[in-house]
């Protein structure tokens, strides 16, 4: 290949300038084919699978190592699921329990209902983390989590687990589908209608919450709309509400403002769908999403020119997500050496990724749910409508120590003395019922122990310290590892290293 690439350039020197330019372009083209055409190798496969999923085993990495860039990406996109592999918790199929019925309950009944809702939330989180752990399509789950963070909605306010589940299924269905379809659906999604208060918005005094966030956080970004756009759009969304009995979307004509509105320079007797189309027609929308995906997949510092290129692809594909992801995952920026290990793992990536990479499959995932929540990422309960800030903000002294403590517990094995020393174990304030419950569940972590012999056997085809290091770390370890460590000690040292926090 090298020889063939060199030849036309050599010949070009004997021709005129024009021919030389043409040939140089051809050579560049061939060179880029060559870069795409080579197998991505073990390190490339590890990079790809950790960025698109939640960790990856040695076997999975080896499986992808022989593929070329485009082959690997097509395999990921082609295998993307639109539904979860696992059956959701049983409560999602139970008859809908309306809000007003909870309000009518006696105090004791209401307390019991409250406990039931908390339990539903836990089941839902454990189910989702399990899906992330076992799915053959981790990219689907990563994108579902990405959109959950984008269209952030919290059970703290929505309360009903059933509505949170329905929204999660919607996000998964369109995770690699169409952004426009997803935006229109999310605007009518019951959990969103409750979370951003549109369910009660009427023409006499529209609620501006959804109208503002749909521009600022869901489509255009701050600075690309004005206060009057918010007020006008809020009028268009009046009457988009919730059926009290079924919890389904309903349109309340008497609440809707049928007058003319002007949003971003466009005027008409708009309803909510019209406003969403006005937003989708703006070039800022594709740029906003593309920039956010850069920070999800590449590095904390988007390159404006490359983001603009992706945004054009996204717009020309009518907001189909797969062409955009194809552009991102085959880009040189995604694969460049300087962007490897440039991102900080989220708590979900850290926890689920550690379990997946090291082949740990616990019976109960609720302790993992508590771990991600304690580390700052409680799925179905983002801190606010902007979602988790991510990046450097994942790591404060408090969360960094929490991460190290959780890793130490998993990799120290099932020593009973260790199990007793849980995070709040000897905390006098731990007497509150919530804390007791938590401690009880943390004891359920006894089967989170790392089985080093199984792990060793799984990577037996290429033994040796280098392979373990390359599997576990995205970049070189900071602390020098002492000589003579056995596999278990080596894994413990690697996960304790600051570099293990990177992906």
């Amino acid at each position: 290949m090298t020889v063939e690439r060199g030849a036309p350039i050599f010949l070009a020197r004997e021709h005129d300038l024009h021919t030389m330019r043409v040939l140089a372009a051809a050579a560049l083209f061939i060179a880029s084919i060559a870069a795409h055409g080579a197998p991505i190798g073990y390190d490339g496969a590890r990079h790809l699978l950790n960025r698109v999923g939640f960790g990856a085993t040695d076997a999975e990495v080896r499986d992808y190592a022989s593929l070329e860039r485009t082959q690997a990406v097509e395999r990921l996109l082609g295998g993307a699921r639109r539904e979860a592999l696992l059956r959701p918790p049983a409560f999602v199929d139970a008859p809908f329990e309306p809000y007003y019925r909870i309000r009518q309950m006696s105090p004791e009944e209401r307390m019991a209902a409250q406990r039931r809702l908390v339990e539903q939330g836990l089941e839902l989180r454990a189910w989702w983390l399990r899906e992330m752990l076992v799915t053959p399509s981790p990219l689907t789950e990563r994108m579902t989590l990405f959109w959950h963070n984008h269209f952030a909605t919290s059970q703290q306010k929505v309360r009903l687990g059933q509505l949170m589940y329905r929204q999660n299924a919607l996000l998964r269905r369109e995770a690699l589908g169409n952004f426009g379809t997803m935006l229109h659906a999310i605007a009518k999604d019951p959990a969103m209608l409750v979370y951003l208060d549109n369910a009660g918005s009427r023409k006499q005094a529209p609620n501006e919450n959804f109208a503002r966030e749909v521009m600022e956080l869901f489509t255009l970004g701050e600075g690309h709309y004005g206060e009057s756009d918010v007020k006008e759009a809020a009028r268009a969304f009046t009457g988009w509400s919730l059926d009290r009995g079924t919890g389904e979307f309903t349109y309340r004509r008497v609440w809707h403002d049928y007058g003319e509105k002007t949003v971003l320079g466009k005027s008409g007797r708009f309803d909510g769908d019209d406003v969403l189309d006005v937003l989708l027609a703006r070039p800022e929308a594709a740029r906003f999403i593309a920039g956010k995906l850069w920070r999800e997949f590449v590095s904390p510092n988007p390159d404006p020119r490359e983001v603009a290129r992706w945004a054009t692809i996204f717009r020309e594909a009518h907001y189909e997500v797969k062409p955009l992801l194809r552009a991102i995952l085959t880009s040189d920026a995604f694969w460049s050496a300087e962007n490897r290990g440039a991102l900080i793992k989220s708590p979900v990536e850290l926890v689920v990724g550690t379990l997946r990479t090291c082949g740990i499959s616990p019976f109960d995932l609720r302790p993992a749910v508590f771990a991600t929540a304690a580390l700052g990422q409680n799925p179905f309960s983002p801190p606010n409508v902007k979602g988790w800030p991510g990046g450097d903000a994942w790591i404060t002294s408090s969360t960094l120590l929490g991460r190290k403590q959780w890793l130490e517990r998993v990799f120290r094995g099932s020593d009973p003395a260790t199990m007793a020393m849980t995070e709040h174990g000897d905390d006098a304030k731990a007497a509150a019922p919530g804390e007791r419950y938590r401690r009880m569940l943390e004891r359920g972590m006894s089967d989170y122990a790392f089985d080093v012999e199984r792990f060793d056997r799984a990577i037996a085809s290429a033994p040796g310290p280098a392979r373990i290091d390359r599997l576990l770390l995205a970049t070189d370890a900071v602390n020098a590892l002492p000589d003579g460590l056995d596999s278990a000690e080596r894994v413990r040292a690697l996960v304790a290293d600051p570099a293990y926090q990177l992906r």
Partner: protein
Amino acid sequence: MTMDRRAFLKLASLCPFAGAASVAWAAASPARKLFILVELKGGNDGLNMVVPYADPEYARIRPRLAIPRDQVVQLSEQSGLHPSLAPLRAAWDERRLAIVQGVGYPQPNLSHFRSIEIWDTASKSDEYLDAGWLARAFAVSPSPDSYAADGVVVGPGAMGPLAGPGARAIALTNPEQFLRNARLARAEGESRNAALAHILRVERDVMLSAERLHVGGKLATEFPRNPFGNAANTAVQLASNEAGIAVVRLSLGSFDTHANQLGTHANLLKQLGEGLAALREGLMEIDRWDSTVIATYAEFGRRPHENQSGGTDHGTSSAHLVLGGAVKGGFYGARPDLARLDGNGNLPFAVDFRGYYATFLERWWGIDSTKVLGARHAKLDFI
């Protein structure tokens, strides 16, 4: 330590307004009085916290949300506190509670996230700064070398005004737990990878602070049994630490009451009132009430007119509370003039929040606020 300080200066020189860092460092750093900040996350309804109960316009524009006159904790003939804040009456009666009304800024931004960024970085409305205003203050005027930390953020959440390389700041929920786990931090070194450099800086700050934190003394003061009460307890424990700490940041929320505000807001203010009262009592117990000032802040207040959902939408200026043994109690700023709302139905501001900040920088710490804030702002007389 020497190397750490050198690394610090190198970083500090990258901050805006930090040109004088090395000069300030060469001078002896005096001990520093404690500043406790309380963030009211989500945008607090100042109008129902400090109630203009005598203004007929107030009841008119808030048919569902107005606090009835007979329930207001009346402090003057015009204004009073929400009934949930009755625990602050004692501090008011001692004239150690200042109420600053109408705190805001020109060209207000009504986005939570942008507006709190403006407050955290003390920027202009259309200016984007990277470092928090307190991180810049510590870059200009570092705390003494012996300090455990410049600042401690209690509870989850972002570092806010302490974000950025200028401050040696840590976050913790429970100091004892922090100390137990600090042994897990042991990395040394630097990195060109920005994400890794951040992690290494956090590890180093943990190690430095852990060496100097000695907490766990028993307090007689009883703290409310809720997260804000626990955070107030932690703040008092930190205030009693022998090695100094200059700033403690607490937070409470969410005050983003777009719908059904009455109950939610009453509950939040109850936590705030009881928590601040316990904080005052605890600081008195450890004899630090006179050397501590406590101040609230938030991204914005809420719209004076209530909405149809029994809530309030994002507004602009709001009232804030300042307490401490050295505070001159009373009303500051300007009472909201409900007859003079702007085109969006919001209140104009009377006190620029950077003047509010400048008051703490200059009068509490003796730092030249122009070096931190980039311009001179009118200070208030509550200290």
